[in-house]
């Protein structure tokens, strides 16, 4: 059997048919993800369970285009699930990944994506220990879809959740908003002008570890993905039954993002991020937590943006830089589809 032509070859139906062609493809994945649990090629990866609480999370990735400034679907698929684990205060341990490939998908692109996943997982210190590939006929998918599931160990003593915040608690944001969504828009050539913005796609578990290690009393963590900061705060307000007041002046939006938003009539606070989190902590610990965040490379632009209050229940308000105050509602209108 001929070796796979990674330069000019394409995915064929036989790559999902269970025969030798499929085995060839899978071997390439095993080589890239490089760990003994996967190399065994059993139906399941088995490992010793650590003590304490575990976290499990799953996510599907259908981003279009597959490659964009600052990342690609592979990096996103690893970071996205790691971040979901991290938001539960968990240390990510293992990932599984399944691939849905469209017949005709260029193998060179698949190679780039798999290498990107391997690189991201290695940097994050997480192992991809189980996987699956399926091939569907041409036009039955759009190139490549990836689904990842992750398992992690929750740090002892943490009780994070949207029902934990109390009135007076501090609201912190780890950095500038809107880069992922605007980078995707520019990659889709929908802007009609060029912007120098890369996605903020990043694994946040290191930042979360630094925050936990600071000893601050953390009550809630959430990454501000689809719907951006607005969606996270509204979910928080609804689930906690409290109000949230934030200050516009303390929210960081880079100039290119602000300009793109002004031109397109978008709200930076509603745009997706892939490497930013919102944290709620006890008010007396806010500065300590802020210091720990700023000391981490992914939290250099962290800021204290507001606080939780008794009411109005379920409502998010924003003190405007211009002087007034307004409601920050759930994001309006059509979300840009397939951003993750």
């Amino acid at each position, binding site marked *: 059997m001929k070796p796979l032509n990674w330069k000019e070859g394409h995915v064929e139906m036989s790559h999902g048919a269970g025969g030798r062609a499929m085995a060839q493809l899978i071997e390439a994945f095993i080589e890239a993800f490089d760990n003994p649990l996967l190399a065994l090629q059993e139906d399941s990866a088995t490992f010793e369970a650590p003590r304490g609480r575990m976290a499990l999370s799953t996510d599907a990735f259908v981003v279009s285009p597959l490659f964009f400034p600052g990342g690609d679907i592979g990096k996103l698929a690893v970071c996205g699930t790691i971040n979901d684990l991290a938001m539960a205060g968990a240390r990510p341990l293992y990932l599984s990944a399944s691939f849905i490939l469209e017949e005709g998908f260029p193998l060179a692109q698949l190679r780039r994506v798999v290498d990107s996943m391997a690189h991201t997982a290695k940097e994050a210190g997480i192992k991809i220990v189980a996987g699956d590939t399926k091939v569907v006929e041409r036009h039955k998918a759009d190139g490549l879809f990836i689904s990842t599931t992750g398992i992690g160990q929750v740090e002892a003593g943490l009780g994070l959740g949207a029902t934990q915040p109390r009135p007076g608690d501090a609201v912190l944001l780890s950095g500038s908003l809107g880069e992922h969504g605007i980078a995707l828009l520019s990659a889709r050539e929908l802007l*009609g002008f060029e912007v120098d913005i890369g996605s903020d796609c990043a694994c946040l578990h290191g930042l979360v570890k630094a925050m936990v290690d600071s000893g601050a009393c953390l009550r809630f963590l959430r990454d501000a993905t689809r719907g951006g900061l607005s969606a996270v705060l509204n979910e928080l307000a609804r689930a906690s039954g409290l109000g949230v007041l934030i200050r516009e002046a303390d929210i960081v939006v880079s100039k290119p993002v602000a300009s793109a938003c*002004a031109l397109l009539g978008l709200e930076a606070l509603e745009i997706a991020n892939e490497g930013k989190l919102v944290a709620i902590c006890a008010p007396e610990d806010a500065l300590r937590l802020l210091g720990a965040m700023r000391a981490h490379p992914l939290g250099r632009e962290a800021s204290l943006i507001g606080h939780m209050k008794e009411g109005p229940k379920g409502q998010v308000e924003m003190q405007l830089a211009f002087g007034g*105050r*307004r409601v920050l*509602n759930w994001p*309006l209108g059509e979300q840009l589809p397939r951003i993750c």
Partner: protein
Amino acid sequence: MNYAHAFADPALGRRLLLAIAREADKPRDYFLMEFCGGHTHALCKYGLPSLLPPNIHLVHGPGCPVCVLPAGRISQALELLSSSKVVLCSFGDMLRVPGSHGQSLLSARAQGADVRMVLGPMQALQLAQTLPEHEVVFFAIGFETTTPPTAQALRLAKQKGLKNFSILCNHVLTPPAMRGVLRAFGAAQGGLGLDAMLAPGHVSTVIGYKPFEEVAQAFGIPTCVSGFEPLDLLEAIYRLLCQLNRNEARLENGFARATTREGNPTAQQYMRETFVLRPNFEWRGLGNLPESALGIAPAYAAWDAQAKWQLPYKPVADNPRCCCAQVLLGQKKPPECTLFAKACTPASPMGACMLSPEGACSAYYAYVQEEPMAVLRVKKTEETP
């Protein structure tokens, strides 16, 4: 200068607000209409109503192209889709507007019709070139701001002899609508209701501010052309208060950095070449307004979808509980509608004012939710002689 930030400077804003407070320090109320939905959104987004003295009342006008398009026009577009060859293109917010029986272009798409979101007519034109087997129709809506690109698409289609491209034209004109609103308020008969008008700056960049000067003169109403940043709006409000306090009624240009009296001559020439005035056009909320909309000129009839498919226009009644018509006329504030934020939300809009991002209802839903200012919509008629 960074235009995105310079016109939102809080320190300058505070100075303007002080000047406004001094000017408004009179035992009277001021009723100012911002005609354009973009202004309504900017006002709410920057929280300006809550910063203004309580005797300044902002009345929201009908300047939202999606909101004023009657349901019958959507039905017309839906009728086009009964032909399997048609690919219908329009702006994103247009696709969700319900026509008769609540059917929208998006729901038609879910049922198999080929409906596509585009950023403008040029994108639809390009699509027509790549799909020679299909009939690509651009559902054109909007005030004078979106009209020149449609004109340019028509010119290019003619130049290229593109036979599978056409325009379903629903372009409307700002000055006749402004006159319609002022007549509805009875402004010409002695100033019931409205004291002054903020005119849209972006429309003025195309048609110039001369047409608004004529409206200001005809109705004796102080008018100020305004941009869309908070300082633009505050400056326009300040200028209008000054005029009212001095019993003046003229047009001022508060958007001098982008507009002139004559506007953009090239855009106007393209529009004259490709469009003609329609004798009549139905507006949601305003009814039939004479010479308030554009049809496609006879020289471009081959690219006129309405002529090409001989689509008659049939009016469709709006949901009787929906107050869009009164909201569009500034006679009701969104929260006064019984459907507002209950049966009618941006996720499931009953009326166009909630659905369109420029609609007053969606502005209130997004930024205000509750009534932000004293409700005194229309001055009591007893006050007038």
